[in-house]
């Protein structure tokens, strides 16, 4: 009984091949199964709890928000949207959606209602807005769907609006919210984008007053965002340190939607 220990023979080539195949294909199979399970878990993951955003798978919403934080690092007031000569602007401006425009509305009754973060409310008329220096912009309006169009808008710069109407302190707040008179369409904006030098409260399109279907008397033109953020027929403006409701972000789109 001396030679109890088995003598370990070196593996033959065939054994080596078998062993390595077993390990590699085993890992490959387990890895594939894990990847598939992971994918199914993500694909069937429940929607986020509805808040200012809704309608996206919860993990995907978290990813969108994290990605927003990353790309916000690159945002700068010095990064301007490319502008074009007026001649290049589309004569037939595309109207992509009527959400928020379908209720009874009388332009003559219109006033802008601004609610500060502390709850104070003020009203501003279109005449007061038009009395201030006008800013014009011809830029490539981009839709989240993928189309784009060179458009020509005129109005009051958002930052000028804030300064003139004593809302300078409100620029310290994180978010601006806008709503149509029927409250059916809402847009929430991060403050840096809202006060970007090319963001305007527009009352002119192609050098004429904005027609009703394009958001008369006052609409938002925010070239650093996709079209979904360019709310027509603004009636309510609010400020908050938390995200304000946003129609398309509640349909699963990115809240930031910045370009």
């Amino acid at each position, binding site marked *: 009984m001396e030679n109890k220990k088995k003598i370990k023979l070196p593996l033959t*080539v*065939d054994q*080596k*091949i078998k062993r*390595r*195949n077993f*390990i*590699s*294909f085993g890992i*490959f199979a387990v*890895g594939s199964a894990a*990847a598939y399970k992971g*994918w199914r878990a993500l694909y069937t993951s429940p929607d986020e709890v509805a808040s200012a955003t809704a*309608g*996206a*798978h919860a*993990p*995907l*919403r978290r*990813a*969108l928000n994290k*990605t927003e934080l990353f*790309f916000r690092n*690159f*945002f*700068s007031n010095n*990064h*301007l*949207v*490319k502008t074009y000569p007026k001649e290049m602007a589309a004569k037939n401006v595309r109207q992509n959606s009527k959400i928020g425009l379908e209720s009874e509305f009388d332009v003559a009754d219109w006033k802008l209602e601004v609610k500060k973060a502390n709850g104070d409310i003020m009203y501003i008329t279109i005449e007061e807005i038009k009395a201030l220096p006008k800013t014009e912009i011809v830029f*490539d309006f*981009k*839709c*989240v*769907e*993928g*189309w*784009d169009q060179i458009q020509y808008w005129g109005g009051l710069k958002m930052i000028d609006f804030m300064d003139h109407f004593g809302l300078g302190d409100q620029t310290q707040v994180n978010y601006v919210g806008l709503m149509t008179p029927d409250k059916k369409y809402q847009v929430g904006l991060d403050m840096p984008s809202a006060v970007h030098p090319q963001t305007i409260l527009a009352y002119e399109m192609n050098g004429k007053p904005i027609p009703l279907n394009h958001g008369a008397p006052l609409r938002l033109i925010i*070239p*650093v965002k996709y079209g979904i953020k360019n709310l027509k027929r603004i009636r309510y403006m609010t400020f908050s340190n938390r995200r304000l409701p946003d129609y*398309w972000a509640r*349909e*699963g*789109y*990115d809240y930031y939607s*910045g*370009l």
Partner: protein
Amino acid sequence: MKVIKEKHSLLMRWTHWVNFPLLTIMIWSGMLIYWSNDVYTLTIFGHQFFRFFPDWFNNFFNIPGRLAEGMAFHFLFMWFFALNGLIYVLYTIISGSWRELLPQRKSFKEAWLVLLHDLHIRKMAPPQNKYNAAQRIAYTAIIVMGFGSLITGLAIYKPVQFSTITWLCGGYHLARIAHFVLTIGYVFFFLIHVFQVVLAGWNNFRSVISGFEVVKTEPAIPQIDIETPKAPETDGK
């Protein structure tokens, strides 16, 4: 006699197989996005040959009306796609395996000969190391394409913050077209790649999972050392 010949490194195999589902998800989510403005056609001299994509195709893959979902997936998996590609490229540079991979000056001529050989027009293939000339070009091109997708993608995604990149891509429209064409390129690459892998056979396919190929060598003839009478010298004729 069988001999194990190492072929693909562990990292190369991992990044290859990780890339496969990632690229699939990127293409799929890209199609969900593209659907909402599906304007691209194959039109030559005013005649439209093909529209990307026909309704039956979109319906078959359940594509219509999922833009928001498509964007959410696209903008998550772009990170993993980029990261995986970056790891592979860094590894290729650091390990020196780029030497086996980058096309050489002669590769472009040789690739033609490889093609003729593959098509059974030419008997002999040019001598090669790990990859033949056509593979060198294809596997380098696909990395350049991947980089192109990231750059054109960024140009479309943030055309204001990264306006220089958009400008380098020839503007928003061209960037979008390039991003789309590159994706079509991946699909063609995939089809040819799979076809070639099938033709190359099991030994080759296995090496991308287990890392090695089995090479059969001629059994060496045992040399018996016996004094042999010297043959009279001749001039070989």
